[in-house]
């Protein structure tokens, strides 16, 4: 999804995941409306919005473990550690999130993408605050996700490493 600031990218994403009620129309998942059975849809859905959902008082590792438990994804401590190492948060994983930089906080979100088997990603500006290595890592994760048969709906101003199947341009 591309579009100028204020063209409605975030609003559309929030409508798709069901946080905002659309004025008209409905969202279908496997042919069924998501409003009627939100839990089945939520189980398939990984959403990362403007606000990262990272608690400042919890460490990177605790934030990741908590986010996965909330998504009903079981991960062993070894898996958590491996994912954090892959996104470059091995050393600061015990620091409270308030001491991490904006990019490092984004990387907690990348670790979530590694461990969460959700088939549908809805990501709002996933590349903001990430450095080049982070962008490359996100590109790899996205390619792996798509190769597995996953779907991804994302809004971005950056060039993506893999070509999107469909580009949606929102006019203001």
């Amino acid at each position, binding site marked *: 999804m591309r579009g100028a600031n204020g063209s409605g990218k975030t609003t559309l994403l929030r409508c798709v995941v069901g946080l905002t*009620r659309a004025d008209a129309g409905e969202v279908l998942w496997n042919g069924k409306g998501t409003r009627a059975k939100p839990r089945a849809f939520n189980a398939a859905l990984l959403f990362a919005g403007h*606000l990262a959902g*990272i*608690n400042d008082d919890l460490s990177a590792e605790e934030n990741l473990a908590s986010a996965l438990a909330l998504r009903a994804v079981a991960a062993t401590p070894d*898996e958590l550690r491996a994912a954090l190492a892959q996104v470059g948060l091995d050393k600061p994983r015990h620091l409270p999130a308030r001491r991490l930089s904006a990019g490092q906080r984004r990387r907690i979100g990348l670790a979530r993408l590694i461990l969460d088997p959700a088939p549908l990603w809805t990501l709002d500006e996933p590349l903001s605050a990430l450095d080049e290595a982070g962008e490359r890592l996100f590109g790899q994760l996205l390619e792996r996700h798509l190769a597995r048969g996953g779907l991804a709906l994302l809004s971005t101003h950056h060039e993506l490493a893999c070509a999107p199947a469909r580009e949606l341009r929102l006019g203001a």
Partner: protein
Amino acid sequence: MSAAAESSFAAGFAWAIARDVRLAWRHPGEALLVIAFFTLVASLFPLGVGAERELLERIGPGVIWVCALLAAFVSLPALFSSDYADGSLEQMTLSPHPMPGWVSGKIAAHWAISGLPLTVLAPLLGLQYALSADTLVALVCALALGTPVLSLLGAACSALTLGARGGGMLLALLALPLFIPVLVFGAGAAEAQAAGQSSAAHLSLLAAGLILAAIALPSAVCAAIRIALD
């Protein structure tokens, strides 16, 4: 690649209570300050009004109940607002766990941090008011039944004021009047016992209120959170 675990009411409840208690434990000073403050307030009353036995017996349950009520109230604004501000509330709403599960878990954690410690401390506070053993038992039972109702009612008000300007003042105007029935029957239980009557009627009413609140209010909180996030 990780396996999918079970998503259920109980899993969401356990997740929320463990998280919120752990967060409170990170800053024990904040929760302890509230408890210490209201314990001190309750201890200062006998010094202020004088050591007249009948007077203390008369006002004791009421003072302890007002302290419990205010302790529940002051920790309310933080119940949802920080999760709302950092986006955690969106993630919780989109979780496959049923929404009433984790909402109830957060409310239970609020009670464990505010209502439970005061219920446990109440016999000590009651001693300063020369309350008899029977009255203390009635007071503790009433607090154990009534303070969860305060947390439930308060959570609904706290969710309703999410994102509103001047939320704190609005929360006081909304929540404190709703707390009044709990205060009346809660303090009434201990007073009836002190007057030589049975506190059973008051306690039954409180228990009925608790059941009703525990069934109805989590859904109301869910609806309020959805509105706030929309």
